[in-house]
């Protein structure tokens, strides 16, 4: 049988379908591994400096409450910051509690020398102080800084589309903190190992 133009034309859709199939399999594989999230929104802030945002007050004025959050706090950071955007009224944030609790306790014990010490900061989105305090209690008071964004205006400056979201910020004296990773949805151990842990190893 000789190969005619007709054969080649008939092979074209088959090849197209095969290409699509390979693409879909790769997408599904990425979904399982946490590399690909179809609902993830383009995150233009990744790779850019920390945005300007209005200064956020602390949860309360008592000395036991962590200090609030301002743009200036990122200016002279010496360690990577993991910033959690959360609210007590959001179910995925409640589901996130065990992981945050686990992460905070594991960070409290001395780290191996080749990973940078990570600090956990929080931005509480449109929440009531009493309910936020209850969430913090359950999470074991994980944050060393916590800003209350009552109106949700600071979250818009961060490009937040919904809680929970997480930002990894690296120290950068020139720009005053650089965002290297932005995740939407609950942070899990899988995501942490895939995206955050490798970044910490690159810090000298």
């Amino acid at each position, binding site marked *: 049988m000789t190969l005619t133009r007709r054969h080649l034309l008939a092979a074209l859709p088959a090849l197209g379908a095969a290409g699509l199939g390979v693409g879909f399999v790769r997408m599904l594989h990425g979904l399982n591994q946490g590399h690909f999230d179809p609902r993830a*929104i*383009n*995150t*233009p*802030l990744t790779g850019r400096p920390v*945005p300007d945002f209005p200064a956020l007050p602390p949860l309360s004025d008592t000395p036991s409450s962590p200090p609030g959050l301002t743009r200036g706090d990122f200016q002279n950071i010496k360690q990577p910051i993991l910033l959690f955007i959360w609210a007590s009224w959001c179910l995925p944030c409640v589901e996130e509690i065990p992981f945050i609790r686990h992460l905070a306790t594991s960070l409290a014990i001395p780290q191996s020398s080749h990973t940078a010490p990570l600090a956990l900061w929080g931005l509480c989105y*449109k929440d009531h102080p009493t309910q936020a305090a209850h969430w913090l209690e359950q999470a074991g008071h994980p944050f060393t800084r916590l800003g209350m964004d009552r*109106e*949700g*205006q600071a979250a*818009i*400056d*961060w*490009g937040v*589309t*919904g809680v929970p979201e997480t930002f990894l910020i690296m120290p950068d004296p020139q720009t005053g903190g650089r965002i290297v990773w932005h995740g939407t949805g609950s942070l899990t151990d899988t995501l942490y190992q895939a995206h955050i842990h490798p970044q910490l190893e690159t810090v000298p």
Partner: protein
Amino acid sequence: MKRLIFALLLLLFSIPACLAVDTPDEMLPDPALEQKAQQIGQQLRCLVCQNESIEESSAPLAKDLRHIVRLQLQQGRSPKDIEAWMVQRYGEFIRLRPSFSAVTALLWLMPILSLMVALLLVRRLWHRSASAPAPLTPEEHRILDSLLKKD
């Protein structure tokens, strides 16, 4: 029947009102400025319910963004500035009408491209049917004659 048509017509005219903001107190007192705000808002994607504009959506974030559009309009900022402000925070994805760039060129040029391909195909088909069939070879003439003689 007449009543039904009237009701349907009423429904038709009530749709634009549904596109507006949730509560009247969100709207600007100046109707011209409010209309401008709605035009901008209809071009911005609600990032919570991703196939709606912020003018159509009742998500809290859409409400906040609507408020920001109106606030910035009152401060005298242009629609272009406001869109740039949104894109800086949420990326190109927030535009319901993507801007023309190297990435979106194929998307924007697709209608023209497909029209050109269609015209080319039509031209080819036209020419094929118009051209007369090739004359018979002597061999074909011989076969035809022998077939005709059979009858």
